[in-house]
């Protein structure tokens, strides 16, 4: 599946997007934390730090680590406070 980074997650990852294998949100976050150590500040055992949000395909915001992901999904990680 495809992961896009925006805001601080992009700063920490150092890239704007990446391909990973994951079947759930929790797996995806674990994989990302392993690949990008600087993201660990934002990814906790229970999910995401409150300053970060996760979204599927630009449509649905998700937070439950058990959320199922499909191969064609695009997971967006962004700074949660998207306003000015």
């Amino acid at each position, binding site marked *: 599946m495809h992961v896009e980074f925006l805001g601080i997650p992009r*700063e920490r990852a150092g890239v704007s997007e990446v391909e990973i294998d994951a079947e759930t949100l929790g797996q995806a976050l674990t994989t990302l934390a392993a690949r990008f150590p600087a993201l660990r500040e934002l990814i906790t055992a229970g999910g995401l*730090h409150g*300053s970060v*949000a996760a979204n599927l395909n630009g449509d649905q*915001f998700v937070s439950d680590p058990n959320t199922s992901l499909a191969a064609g999904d695009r997971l967006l990680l962004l700074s949660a406070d998207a306003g000015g």
Partner: protein
Amino acid sequence: MPPGYHGCYLRIDVSTGRAERVPLADAVLRQYIGGSGLGTRLLLDEGGATADPLSPDAPLVFAFSPLVGTPLTTSAKFAVVSRSPLTERINDALAGSGFALAGKRCGCDAIVIVGRASRLSVLVIDDGEVRLESAEDLRGEACPVTEEKVRSRLGADFRIASIGPAGERGVRYATISHDRRHAGRGGSGAVLGSKNVKAVAVRGTQRCDWADPGALVELSRDVSQRSFGPATAKYRELGTATNLLTLNRFGALPTRNFQRGTFEQAPNLSPAELSARYPRARASCVACTIGCEHLYELNDAGVRVEYESLFALGSLCGVADGGAVLRALQRCDELGIDTISTGGTIAFAMECVERGLLDEPWLAFGSGDAVLHAIDLIGRREGIGRMLAEGSRRAALAIGHDSLAFAPQVKGLEIPGYEPRALQTMALGFAVGARGADHNRSGAYEVDFSDKVDRRHATIDSVRHAIDTEDRSALMDSLILCKFLRGVFTDFHAEAADMLTKVTGWDVTPDELRTTARRIVGAKREFNLMAGWTPKEDTLPERFLTAPLPGDPAAALTRDRLEELVAEYYRQRGWTNS
């Protein structure tokens, strides 16, 4: 008088130069705290709801707060409250930094200005002593120049709030500027200009006690420590300009006067692209540990870039040239005009040209030169600038041909950078906002960027979230704390109650603060009712209610749905729609 307060406000009639200290009852202070809340209360008491906002009778309030002067991070802020010449409704605009500290040290919790000086003047408040000095030599000067000249004339320890040429000329969205920051929205600069006051200069020595100084310092240290963490990293490292790419990715970036929600050239305006061409530095308000200001070097000066300015003078006008946007922003700062209303009004005029409703062919989407020229015309009130200086609603009424349907405003205040069809909790916040469409009085976009709602399909359940964010904003704007701090609190009301207790000695509870927030929101509504508000104002322009967002059919908002949401909002507030 409780600790944290002086227990009075300074009322100055600039027609006569007469000043008096008016006592403030403890109950009023506890019920309205300070900032927006206290300012609204004073404005009501001073008869501000019925006076023409540009008449001598109209009061203009600078309100401080009990937290100003404490070691609490981000608390050096002040509110400017008046009836808006743009909307004719309540307007509370906030700004930060040393003016708040120096103003409060003049020995007052607020300054109320009425009247009209006989000549352009600097209002000098020196430790509570008031005098007017001629400012004729400052006529036409830009805001930063005015501050510099006034300080060099009066002394380096004065702090200055000033208007630019736009405020002198009554541009209805002129700002009051202080130290590169602006009390930006709603035209408070035009109100000060109508009083023939070019600048307010304050200096003082009178400090307030705190009820529990030791505990307050300890608490302040803890909050500051948390403010260095991930919750504020976005503001510190990237600035709000980074929102541009996020909003664009979600199809919620207003583009070409809200005709689209994405801007193909948005990456040109990202912080990464801008800082590659224009060296970037950081700055902060006095007494702030976040340091959110990102200044891009242009013509040997730092231009402060925020998302709202970037979208308004960039994507909203179809301009992809970062240099042109920076120049436009710099010009707005010099003239002293609100960037959101400036961009919104120019983008509206561009669409009118596109539709053949205005014969100004140079004013085309995508032209940075056109935006710059339009800004100068607005600042000088020349040519089409005379009409655009009135804001998009008045311009639409002058142009006719149903152009009001796509004038990007609510109650006359231009809409900030959140496409309402793609962010529908925010759409409700815009519609019911007391000062018009505004992201600082309703932070409902936060709800749309969460799993609490479907951002493109607001339901009745969205309403309580919109109310919560509006109430929290009212509280933060009255305490006053910067909203960029909001992410560091795990229980905002409990922590805010603790702060207030340690400063004032009152036994404040979280529930009391929830009630206070509702009271402040209610006071703004009371003001608007007295000022002539009608239910039909709590809506959005026709454009947003008749067609889905082009390119995103799911982003559709009907009039019926919005009316249903607004009705539920009134019901939950306990208000009738009359």
